């Protein structure tokens, strides 16, 4: 006697620990096998793009903090770089270095969260994530020292950064940079050879190279699929062309490679910090920019390599004090479009870890 089966629709989220925020996945299942997934987004929509059209260029900087709130500095940076391109502002040397230093610190902090929570989704409940939070906490302390907040930094300004670093900053950062490789080794000892991790993530949620390119994926998700594309190298912004670093690429494009690429990128960020700290010049930290900046009529697209991928800002100016159009290209929204192709045919538990390995941030997806 044949058993009659029919597909079953499972709602994951919006309030669910594995959805990294308020995100809903409508998964169609055949038994335990995923047949279809449909992301439902918009729970955190605040209309930032519209709000920004009513505010001056400087007033929009704190709004960019609230996109990917786990990496606010890079959001600030992408936005101010776009405005500077539009208004042709020259940034002082010291500010450029401070931007690179803080952006790389941010990349480490964001990847620590990504890797930690990926393991959380895998079932390694809270142990790895707390190890990684310890290091992230040190970085947050340093950010707090520089710009007074731990999450929404609002540090970049058009033409530079808002404050110079205090005296105690560099010794503390040097200490962090010196001990960080040891901690990354510790994570490797804890995780890289762990059989459970390997079995659960190797070959799971594969994103083939071609599909990764066609779906416009970026960041660690793209690089894990074997594409050597990093905007810091491909279209250097700020002063990244002065530093020596490698671009780690994966080969299989599976969950394990995405995890591995992130860990290696942390090592590379530490390398950039090691080079940038001794080179830091003295001088001004912000150029003279009128408070009510009126960039010339025109449009601009500025993009950077944010921890999660290519973060772009498209701005249109009509020579008034506020942008005429303010459009964000959030990396994780676009990486998320590839999720369906990655998970079909896998089990529900694999759906969760594949979703975790994309490293989404809902503040950025919904905007």
């Amino acid at each position, binding site marked *: 006697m044949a058993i009659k089966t029919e597909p079953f629709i499972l709602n994951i989220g919006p309030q669910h620990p594995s959805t990294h925020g308020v995100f809903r996945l409508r998964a169609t299942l055949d038994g335990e096998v995923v047949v279809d997934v449909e992301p439902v987004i918009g729970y955190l929509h605040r209309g930032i793009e519209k709000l920004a059209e009513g505010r001056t260029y400087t007033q929009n900087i704190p709004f960019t903090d609230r996109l990917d709130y786990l990496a606010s500095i890079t959001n600030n940076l992408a936005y101010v770089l776009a405005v500077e391109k539009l208004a042709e502002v020259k940034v002082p040397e010291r500010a450029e270095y401070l931007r690179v230093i803080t952006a790389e610190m941010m990349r480490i902090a964001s990847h620590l969260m990504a890797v930690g929570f990926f393991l959380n989704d895998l079932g390694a409940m809270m142990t790895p994530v707390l190890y990684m939070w310890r290091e992230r*906490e040190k970085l947050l*302390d*340093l950010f707090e020292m520089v710009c*007074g907040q731990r999450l929404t930094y609002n540090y970049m300004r058009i033409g530079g950064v808002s404050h110079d670093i205090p005296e105690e900053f560099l010794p503390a950062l040097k200490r962090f940079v010196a001990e960080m490789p040891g901690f990354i080794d510790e994570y490797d000892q804890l995780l890289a050879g*762990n059989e459970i991790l390997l079995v659960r993530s190797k070959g799971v949620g594969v994103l083939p190279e071609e599909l990764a390119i066609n779906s416009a994926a970026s960041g660690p998700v793209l690089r894990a699929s074997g594409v050597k594309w990093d905007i810091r190298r491909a279209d250097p912004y700020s002063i990244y062309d002065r530093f020596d670093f490698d671009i780690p690429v994966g080969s299989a494009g599976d969950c394990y490679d995405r995890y591995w690429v992130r860990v290696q990128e942390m090592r590379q960020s530490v390398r950039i910090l090691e080079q940038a700290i001794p080179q830091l010049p003295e001088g001004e930290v912000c150029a003279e920019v009128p408070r009510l900046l009126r960039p010339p009529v025109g449009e601009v697209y500025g993009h950077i390599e944010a921890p999660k991928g290519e973060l772009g800002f498209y701005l249109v100016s009509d020579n008034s004090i506020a942008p005429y159009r303010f459009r964000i290209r959030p990396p994780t929204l676009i990486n998320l479009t590839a999720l369906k192709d990655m998970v079909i045919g896998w089990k529900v538990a694999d759906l969760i870890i594949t979703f975790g390995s994309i490293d989404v941030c809902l503040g950025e997806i919904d905007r």
Partner: protein
Amino acid sequence: MKFERYGIGIAKGMALTFKHLFRPPITVQYPEEKLVVSRRIRGNELVWYPDRCTGCATCAKSCPQGNIEIVTHVGDENNYVVDKFEVDTGRCMFCGLCVESCPYEALAMGLSYERAQYRRGQLVLSKEELRLSDVRQPSGYARPKIEATLPEQSLLVNWDREKGGQKLSLVPLSKKRGRGV
């Protein structure tokens, strides 16, 4: 997936976890023990100095949220007299742009960070509530002179792993500067 010797990776991880059992804790018991916050903390709302404020409303114009409401009239010496200076801190996002833009240093961010209230209306602060007081101290954000007088921030990086123990500087309970306590 095949492994030559299954379990080695897990054992290595367990060894590390075991080592952690003997590491002294780096956490603190929050309400009783408090860490020293950054000198530039963008903490509790704002601190307003009526004697320095000219009523120019630069701060109100630079606020992205339009939180600051200022009403003035022209006084005897052809100056502005501030009748109303009200900040709706329920909508404030602590960006600090108002403090950065004030040309007379009449505004500073606050130092404390415990600001829960029972009602939303209590978050709208009037001229009197924004003044300097025991519980409303200014932080050094964009105010280097104040910054120099504040104690050093406790940093987890400076926590001494070799010697162990709690090396973070703490503010004892009696000296806390919170509001509404």
